[in-house]
Each structure stands twice: as structure tokens, then as C-alpha cells.
């Protein structure tokens, strides 16, 4: 905020001169820094190689075969069951895969915006001072700390049609509420989304609060004095300032929803029918029930490629490495 001033005045920034000098000296001195850089990144590179590249290659290999544990062959001999692009053709023709993908996207387009808006709303409220703020702040983060599996069991119990949620609704409405949260296909996905919103809004809140705290107060006041109302301030000042952080927060949630499993599986196991079968549950079922592992390998790669494109777009919004402000 203050660093914008003076930066264009070379004389005012002796540090920049020193920085260049030091860098030049170090680089000229045999590239010790580059070597250190390589060493520093080595563990991460090795880990990626070890548990990302190898499995990915194996996955790619399997996806072109028709190997399953049922074939009675070791995976190394999977080439004997070469299937070409068969699995991929199957993936593209598989209603269930696309259905699961569609439901996952449905959760993405409903739950993520809700989490975002709730998180943003809460974060906005937390920009003000009010009594009990610190305690409330801690409480708001609690859902993140609950193991998703146990959250799943609790939501399962809460959403029973004669369970506490309906009890609460009955008490409020004065009527006997018996909503079939988990057995009505349309409501089951709502229940699953509610659980996801409960668990992950806190992270959204936390990230957005960090973003809002970084918005310069002076610029907000300046905008107010220039006649901007709350919404205009938000739209013209806050939003552009926290755009990057919003993209990151949304990207994190979108990515993680593609992995949504524990809570959902415990609540509905993807049911009733396939009403809440998301891509992860689909993979789990195919993998454990159908044992079509090479198919899962292919479908997983398709999802990965799709998500990579999304991630590439998201990354375009991120600050470029090395470029400041």
C-alpha cells in the first residue's frame, strides 16, 4: 500500500540497487544460488516423481488395457489384455459417469456459490467490531476441525425423517414436519450439499476474511467520500482487490468437491438410487464393486484432464511468479 510510492523514483530505492548488485555478484560467483535452488526443490520433485509420475504412468498404461483384479493376472502383465481406447470410448458413452459428473457439477454450482456468499457475508460482518467477536470467530472455524467421517454420521442422524432437524422444524412451524431428507432423491442431494456447506464455509470465510482485511481502508473511505454506496464500494473496490483470492478460494473448493466422499458416502452412500452419486462415489463403487480398475483409470484421467483445464484457467488469474504488483 505504501510501497507504490517511491518505487518509480530510482534514487528513492537504494535497496533495489543493492539487490541487483548482490544478485549479480552471486550469479557471477559460480551459480551457488541456482545450485541451492535445485537442492531445495529436489525433495518435492522426488516426491512428485515417486508418487505422482509413476502412478500416473501406470494409470495411463492400465487405462489402455482391460485389466481388473478378476483377470487373475499381475498388473505388469496387463498388456496381454490390451484394449486400446476401449475404456475411453466406454467413459464417453457411460451415462452413469456423466450422471455422476453432472451431480458433482451440480454440487459445485450450488454449494460453492452458497459457501462463497455465506463466507463473504460472514467475513464482511467480521470486518466490524462487535461484542463477542473473538469467541464467535473461533466457533465459526469449528466445522473445519471436525473429522468429516463423524460429521457424516451426525448429519445422517440429524436428517432422519423423525430426527432432530425435522423436530426443530416442527417446533418452529408448529406443524408436524416429516421431510424425507435422505430418502427423497431430490432432497438427498440438498442434504448432502448442506453438509458440505457446513463443513467448508469456514475455510471460505477464513480465506475471504484474510482477503477483506487486506483491502486498504483508505481506498474504501475515499470511495465512500466520492459517493459510493456499500454495494458500489464492494463492486468497484473490494471485488477487484480480492479477485485473485476469490479465484483461489473457489478453485480450492471446486477441486475438493470433486473429491467429496466421506461425509456424503456415510450419509447416503450415493443413494437413494444414484441420486447423490458424485464422481468420487462413482469411482469408489466401480472400483470396489465392479472391480473395473482399468476403467476407473481411464475415467480418472478424463476427470484429471478436465480439471487441469479448469486449473489452467484459474492459474491465469494468479499473480505471475516473480512479478510483483
Amino acid at each position, binding site marked *: *500500500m*505504501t510501497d*507504490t*510510492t*517511491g*518505487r*518509480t*523514483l530510482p534514487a*528513492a530505492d537504494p535497496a533495489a540497487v543493492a539487490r541487483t548488485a548482490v544478485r549479480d555478484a552471486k550469479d557471477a560467483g559460480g551459480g551457488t544460488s541456482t545450485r541451492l535452488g535445485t537442492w531445495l526443490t529436489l525433495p518435492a520433485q522426488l516426491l512428485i516423481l515417486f508418487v505422482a509420475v509413476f502412478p500416473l504412468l501406470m494409470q495411463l498404461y492400465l487405462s489402455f488395457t482391460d485389466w481388473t483384479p478378476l483377470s487373475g493376472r499381475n498388473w505388469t502383465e496387463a498388456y496381454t489384455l490390451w484394449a486400446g481406447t476401449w475404456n475411453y470410448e466406454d467413459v464417453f458413452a457411460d451415462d452413469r459417469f456423466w450422471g455422476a459428473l453432472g451431480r458433482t457439477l451440480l454440487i459445485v454450482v450450488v454449494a460453492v456459490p452458497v459457501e462463497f456468499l455465506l463466507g463473504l457475508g460472514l467475513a464482511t460482518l467480521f470486518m466490524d467490531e462487535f461484542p463477542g467477536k473473538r469467541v464467535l470467530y473461533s466457533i465459526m472455524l469449528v466445522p473445519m476441525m471436525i473429522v468429516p467421517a463423524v460429521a457424516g454420521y451426525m448429519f445422517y442422524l440429524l436428517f432422519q425423517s423423525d430426527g432432530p432437524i425435522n423436530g426443530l422444524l416442527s417446533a418452529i412451524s408448529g406443524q408436524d414436519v416429516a421431510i424425507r431428507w435422505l430418502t427423497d432423491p431430490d432432497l438427498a442431494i440438498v442434504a448432502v450439499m448442506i453438509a458440505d456447506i457446513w463443513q467448508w464455509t469456514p475455510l471460505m470465510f477464513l480465506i475471504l476474511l484474510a482477503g477483506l482485511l487486506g483491502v*486498504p481502508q*483508505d*481506498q474504501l*473511505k*475515499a*470511495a*465512500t*467520500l*466520492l*459517493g*459510493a*454506496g456499500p454495494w*458500489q464500494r464492494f463492486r*468497484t*473496490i473490494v471485488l*477487484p*482487490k480480492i479477485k485473485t483470492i476469490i479465484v483461489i478460494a473457489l478453485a480450492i473448493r471446486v477441486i475438493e468437491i470433486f473429491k467429496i466422499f466421506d461425509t456424503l458416502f456415510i450419509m447416503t452412500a450415493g443413494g437413494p438410487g444414484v441420486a447423490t452419486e458424485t464422481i468420487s462415489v462413482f469411482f469408489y463403487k466401480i472400483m470396489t464393486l465392479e472391480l473395473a480398475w482399468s476403467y476407473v483409470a481411464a475415467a480418472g484421467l478424463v476427470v484429471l484432464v478436465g480439471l487441469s483445464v479448469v486449473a489452467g484457467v484459474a492459474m491465469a488469474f494468479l499473480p505471475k511468479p516473480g512479478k510483483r*504488483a
Partner: protein
Amino acid sequence: MTSIHLSQIVKRFGDFTALQEMDLRIHDGEFIALLGPSGCGKSTTMNIIAGMEDPSEGRVMFGDRDVTALPMQKRGVGFVFQNYAIFTHMTVRENLAYGPRMHGAPRAEIERRVVEMADFLDLGAILDRPSAGLSVNILQRLAIGRSAIMEPAIFLLDEPLSNVDAAFRAVMRRELKSLQQRFEQTMVYVTHDQLEAMTMADRIAVMDHGVLQQVGTPLEVYNAPANLFVAQFLGAPGMNLLPGMLDGDGIVLEGGGRIALDDREVRTARRATGRDVVYGFRPEEARMGEDGVTRPVSFVERIGARTILHMEGGIKAVFENDVAVAEGRPVTLSPNPGAARIFDAGTGARLEG
């Protein structure tokens, strides 16, 4: 253009009183500087004028209008922040256009006003540059222009030069003053730098510890400080202040020595509530002589055009040309006739005859 009247303003933050019964009138088209050390309440005063803070007591009047309860966006004040608060994610043009846009002005009108303002401020060439990374003087002009485009009746500037290199401040000051003269608006300028206040302001309001100490033209507050604080705070270096005791027609100084007073001065000094008074004179209003204050020289500061003597007891003297003194040797200073200001040691107020 509008006058401002702060009427009996009190501002408390919890137990802390930031402003005590502040009463200040600012005239139409006046450039007034709120001057004081940090924490003196000057920024609070400005925020209250702007509407960013509500006074705990008292009223704020713009002309005849009571604006105390008016939210800041409706007060029609222009505000230039310490760091200019330029919207760094926008271009120069977007910054200038922000106010009219928020007020829903038609596109064509916005464009016309922006170009007009840009020409006026010499920003025309860089209208479409991103505002991040502009140099400070351009940022200052942009900040002023962004407010000025709304034609506010009142302009408030919050230490706009505090982040600027010393060498550059003179340029900025000049530019600011000329802008003010062209806009002819009421300007309230907050600063802790007396040089800025002295060079630009029509009047200076000196504040300390939430209390308005004195309001007057730069020369008034310089020449006739209302109290010990103003006397010491203004001037570089500040006024020499020597506590002593009134003794007949002279003052016996605490650090030794006696200063004779003329009749008028004696009359003035007798107004003191007790016999304890403080004798003051400007460092530049003294010469070396026979009578006066005698102290050893602790060191001599020669800065080309002027020579500053630092004497024991914190007494300083400024001479236009070099003087032949040696460090460690006593020197006697004689204040010029009429240079003496006498303060009541008990109340701190300057005594007037």
C-alpha cells in the same frame, strides 16, 4: 465554497478524550492547516469534519447547515489521504471518473469532466495509464483531481506530503498551493510539519493533546504564540524559554543571571498569577552583547547561510553570518528590543500588556 464551524466538539474513545471542547471557525475559501505533533487530535478533527467519525459532543456546521448527523458520503467534502488512496486497480481515467460515475452522471458528461480535470491538472497524457506505479506528485495531483472533479465545497488533506522525500516536498508544496489558489476552495490541511503549514496555510490551528492551542495566520502564531506549547513548537529551532522569577524590573533566571525588562515588559510580567514567569525570545531575535543570558557554548552548527549556537540549558541562537565563538566558552545573548515574550509559568499562557 463554504465556511466550517466546529462548535464545542468533544471526542472520546472509551476513557480517552481525543478532543476537548474544540471550537473552530474556518472561513470560506480559506486554507487552514491543523498543526500539531502526532496524537494531538488533528486527524480526529479532520475525520469529524469529513464525517468519518462522529463527535461525542458538539456540532459541525457547514455554513448554516448542521451536518453533524450527515453521513460522510453526503457531506460533499473532498478528502486527500496521506497515501492518496488512489484506486490502484484502475487507470488514471477511471480514478478521475469514479466520483461522477458513483453519482450516476451521464457517460458523456463524465468524459467531459474527466478530460477537463485532466487538462487542468496536466494529467491528459497519462489518462489511460494504470495508476499503480505513478510517481508521487502525479498521485497527489490525481488524488486532488479525483476529489476536485466533484467540486466539493471543502477539501480535506491528511498529511499528503508525509511519505514524500524531503527534496521533493518543496515541489509538492508549491504545486499544492497553486492548486488551492486555482480551485479557491476551503481547504483543511492536516500536518505535523510546521514548514508546510507556514508556507501554504492562510491560517494555522495549532493543537496539542486534544486541545486547540491557537488559531491565527502563520505570522501571528509565530510572532505571538498564545502559550508555551505554541512558542516551542513553532519555529526551527523553537523559541528559547527561560524560567525565572519576577524581581522588580527584571527576571532572575533559574539557570543563573538576570534579565532587565523595560516598563512595558514589567507591566506585562506583573499580570502573571504568581511571581514565576517564563522569559522567551526567538533564537533569531538576539545578538551577542553585554547584558542578557550568559551560558557556555556547547557546540556551534554552521550550515552555510546561518550559524546556530547551541548553549547549555537548551538555549539556541541563530545568526545570519558566522560568529567567532569557541565551544565551551561562555557567551552572553541579548534579546532584541521588543523580542521578549513573557509567559505565566503557572498557566503557560503568554502575558500581554
